[in-house]
């Protein structure tokens, strides 16, 4: 299945992209997706490991199964305020 992954802040800077597609197996979890992202950006694996994943409505657990064709936000440690 295909997922759209959105990057923010430092992750957008290091990838040079605000979003891109990933082909992943059906039933892919958040954790599995993060492994795929790390493999595409091995220099930034530490940063990828620090993100929380979310959809546009709320954070989601790394263990939850991602929906086909869904958009997944990678949220680096936040620094608002």
């Amino acid at each position: 299945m295909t997922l759209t992954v959105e990057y923010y802040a430092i992750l957008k800077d290091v990838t040079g992209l605000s979003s891109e597609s990933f082909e992943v197996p059906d039933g892919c979890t958040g954790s599995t997706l993060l492994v795929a992202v790390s493999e595409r950006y091995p220099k930034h694996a530490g940063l990828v490991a620090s993100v929380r994943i979310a959809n546009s409505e709320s954070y989601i657990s790394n263990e939850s199964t991602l929906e086909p064709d869904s958009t997944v936000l990678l949220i680096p440690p936040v620094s608002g305020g």
Partner: protein
Amino acid sequence: MSITVQIKITEDRIAIPDLEAFLREAEGGAVNLFVGTTRRVTEDRITVELSYECARELALAELDRIVSEAKVKWPILRVVVVHRVGTVGAGEASVVIGVATAHRVESFEACRFLIDELKKRVPIWKKEVYEDGDTEWVTGNSPS
């Protein structure tokens, strides 16, 4: 008694006097307001401006949840949460949080809860722009 809430993420300068007046109109007795501003000096480096980015839809949803949690904990009459994004010049407010309640202790506690949770949970990021032209994304807020 209807609770009145303003939650906003905006590119514009935050109109603090309007927010304070909105809170005071509750005639509750107590208003506590927290204003986060650009800190000019951080570990000896001079910051000339900050730039903020957000994941807007998620950020607004998370702010809604935080305000709902506060309303369960304290008898809040009115509440405002406004975060600025884009470029914020030195001395300008990046965030304003305010709470109107009947008693002062509640206003302090609720306001502090809101800013603490915002800093922990809301997908907004700060980029420091230093005097020497360097820029740097801040990743993660310190506990205080």
